[in-house]
C-alpha cells in the first residue's frame, strides 16, 4: 500500500473518527428508541388485552351467545386477533387466529398473565394469555408487530444515512482544516528548498507569536541564520587564507622562474626537482586563485561588471586567450548561430568560465576538444566537447560541487585539477542568469553546455 501524505492521513483520521462517533451515537439512539417503542407498544397491547379479557369474562358469565360476535368486534376495533378457550371449546374472533397459532406452552392453564414475542413467517407476533379463573376460561390475544418492524427499519435507514453523511462531513472538515493547519509546513518546505538552492535571504514569517507554527518558524529562521553565519565564517576564512598564501606563492613562483632561467647549469636531478616544483607551484597558485574567487562569490564581495557583448567574438577571444595563456593545444571553434547574439556578462569571469571548461576538457579528455556556439531555447549556448570517457548521468549534478572527487576523476584520466574549476563555472554562469549542463558529446566524451539568455545589442 502506498504511503499516504500527512494531509491524507489526517483527513482519513477525521473521516474514521466521525464515522466511529456517529456509529456509536446512531447505535445508542437506535437501541434506545427501539427499547422505548417496543416497551411502549407491549404495555399498550397488554392494557388492551386486560380490557378485552374483562369484556370476555362478562360475556362468558352472562351472555355466552354474544361471545363470537364480541370477539369479532374486538378484533375489528383493535387490529388484533382474539381467542377464548373454555375447556375444550375455542371461540375465535377472526380467521387469522386459530388454536393452532397459539404456542403449546400457552395452552396449559395457568394463573398468571403471560406474554411472548415470537416470529411467524418472518413477522414478529406478540401473544398474550390472560387466565380468567372466575369463568374457567383463558383469553388469548395475538398482535402482529410488522408495523413496528417497519418503523425500526426506517429509523435504522435514517440513522445509517446520517452516519454516512456525518462521515463525509468529517472527511470534508478534516480536509479543510488540515489544509489550513499544514499550510505553514508547505511554506517551510518551500523556504528550505530555496535555501538549498542558495537563497540565504529567505525567512519564514511568524504571525502568531505563541503558536507551535511560530516555534517552528523561529527554529527554521534560527537555523538559516546559523547557516549564513557559518558560511560567512568559512568564506572569510578561505578568503583570508588564500590572501595570505598569495604573496608567498608569488615569491615562490618568481623564484622558481629565476631558477628555470639557469636550468642548464643545474644537475639533472635538480632539473627534475625544479620541474616538479614549477608544476606544483602553478597548481597551487591556480587553487588559491579559485579559492579567492569562490570566497568572494560566497561573501558577495565581488562586484560584477556586466557588459553586452557579441557572443561569437567573445568566445573566440576567450578561447584564443586561454589557449595562449595556459599553453593549451589549438582548439576547434565552430559557430552554428544564424545571426549575431549578444549576452550580458562580466568579461573577466566569462573568460574564466571558458578557460576552466577548456582546461577540464583537455585534462580529462583524450586530446580532441571542440567549442561550438549554438542557438538554444530562447538564448545561446556554448558547448565544449571532448573525446574522453564522459561522465555518468548519476554524477552529472555532483561534478559541480566543490572538491567533488567521485568516479569521474579516476575514469577521466589521471590528471589532477584543483577541484574547484567546475564549481566556479557553475557559480559564475548562475550569476549571468544562465545554466550549465552536461550531456553526451558527438566526439564520444562529455559535452558541457553553458546556456545564456541573449539580450538586445546596446541594452543595459
Amino acid at each position: 500500500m502506498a504511503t499516504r501524505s500527512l494531509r491524507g492521513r489526517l483527513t482519513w483520521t477525521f473521516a474514521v473518527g466521525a464515522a466511529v462517533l456517529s456509529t456509536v451515537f446512531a447505535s445508542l439512539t437506535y437501541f434506545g428508541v427501539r427499547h422505548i417503542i417496543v416497551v411502549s407498544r407491549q404495555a399498550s397491547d397488554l392494557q388492551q388485552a386486560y380490557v378485552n379479557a374483562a369484556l370476555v369474562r362478562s360475556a362468558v358469565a352472562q351472555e355466552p351467545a354474544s361471545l363470537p360476535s364480541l370477539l369479532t368486534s374486538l378484533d375489528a376495533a383493535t387490529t388484533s386477533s382474539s381467542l377464548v378457550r373454555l375447556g375444550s371449546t375455542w371461540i375465535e374472533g377472526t380467521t387469522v387466529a386459530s388454536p393452532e397459532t397459539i404456542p403449546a406452552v400457552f395452552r396449559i392453564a395457568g394463573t398468571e398473565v403471560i406474554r411472548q414475542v415470537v416470529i411467524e413467517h418472518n413477522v414478529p407476533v406478540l401473544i398474550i394469555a390472560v387466565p380468567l379463573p372466575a369463568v374457567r376460561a383463558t383469553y388469548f390475544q395475538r398482535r402482529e408487530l410488522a408495523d413496528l418492524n417497519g418503523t425500526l427499519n426506517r429509523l435504522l435507514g435514517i440513522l445509517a444515512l446520517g452516519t454516512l453523511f456525518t462521515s463525509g462531513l468529517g472527511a470534508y472538515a478534516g480536509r479543510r482544516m488540515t489544509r489550513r493547519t499544514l499550510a505553514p509546513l508547505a511554506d517551510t518546505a518551500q523556504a528550505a528548498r530555496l535555501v538549498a538552492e542558495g537563497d540565504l535571504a529567505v525567512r519564514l514569517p511568524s504571525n502568531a507569536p505563541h503558536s507551535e507554527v511560530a516555534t517552528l518558524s523561529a527554529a527554521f529562521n534560527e537555523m538559516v541564520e546559523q547557516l549564513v553565519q557559518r558560511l560567512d565564517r568559512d568564506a572569510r576564512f578561505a578568503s583570508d587564507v588564500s590572501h595570505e598564501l598569495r604573496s608567498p606563492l608569488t615569491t615562490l613562483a618568481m623564484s622558481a622562474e629565476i631558477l628555470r632561467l639557469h636550468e642548464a647549469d643545474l644537475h639533472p636531478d635538480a632539473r627534475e626537482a625544479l620541474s616538479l616544483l614549477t608544476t606544483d607551484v602553478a597548481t597551487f597558485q591556480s587553487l588559491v586563485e579559485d579559492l579567492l574567487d569562490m570566497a568572494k562569490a560566497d561573501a558577495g564581495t565581488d562586484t560584477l561588471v556586466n557588459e553586452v557583448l557579441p557572443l561569437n567574438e567573445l568566445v573566440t577571444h576567450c578561447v584564443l586567450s586561454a589557449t595562449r595563456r595556459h599553453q593549451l593545444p589549438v582548439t576547434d571553434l565552430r559557430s552554428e548561430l544564424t545571426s549575431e547574439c549578444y549576452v550580458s556578462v562580466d568579461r573577466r569571469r566569462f573568460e574564466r568560465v571558458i578557460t576552466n571548461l577548456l582546461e577540464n576538457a583537455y585534462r580529462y579528455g583524450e586530446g580532441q576538444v571542440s567549442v561550438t556556439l549554438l542557438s538554444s531555447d530562447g538564448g545561446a549556448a556554448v558547448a565544449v566537447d571532448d573525446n574522453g570517457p564522459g561522465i555518468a548521468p548519476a554524477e552529472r549534478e555532483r561534478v559541480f560541487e566543490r572538491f567533488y572527487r567521485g568516479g569521474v576523476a579516476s575514469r577521466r584520466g589521471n590528471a589532477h585539477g584543483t577541484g574547484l574549476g567546475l564549481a566556479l563555472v557553475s557559480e559564475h554562469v548562475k550569476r549571468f542568469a544562465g545554466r550549465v549542463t552536461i550531456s553526451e558529446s558527438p566526439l564520444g566524451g562529455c559535452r558541457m553546455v553553458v546556456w545564456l539568455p541573449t539580450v538586445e545589442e546596446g541594452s543595459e
Partner: protein
Amino acid sequence: MKWLRTPAFGLLAALLLSACTLVPTDSSPRAVNSDDVPSGLLNGAGVKQSTTVSLWFFDAQGRLVSRSVRIPAPLTISTLVARLALHVPSGLSTALSPQIAISRAVVRGSEANIFITAGFQSEDSASTITAMQQLVATLRDNYGISTLNVTDVANGRTLTIDSSAP
C-alpha cells in the same frame, strides 16, 4: 494489515446492527407481575357462577321442544352436549348417545366445528341427522350458531348442517 482494521470494525458494526433490526423476540413466555394486572381480573369477584341456557329435546311426537335450565359457568359446547345426552327431562327424548365424547369445539362467528371421538355414528344417516338437528337448535339459542360441522375423528368424515339455508 493495520489498514484492514477500520473496514473490519465497520463491517462488524454493520453486522451487529443488521442482526438487531427486528423487534426483539423472547425465547420463552414471560409472566406479568400480578400486581400490574387490574384487580379482579384474576379472581372470581362479582361474576355469576351459573348461567341459564336453552336445551332442545324431542317430544313424543318427534318434535323439537325447548327447556330452560341453569348450568354452572362457564358455558361450553361440551357441557351443552353432555346435558343433552345425559340429563333428559321426563317425557322427552334425546338423539345423542350417552357415550358421546368431544375432543375440541371451535366457534367462529355463526359457525361451529365439533370434533367427536366417540358416541357418534356418522354412517347411520337417519339418527345422525336427528342428532345434528338437536345440536344445531341448542347451539343456535346459546351461541347464535347457524352452521354446524361435526367431524368424526375416528374416520375423518365431516357432516354439515346449515339452519339458515331455506
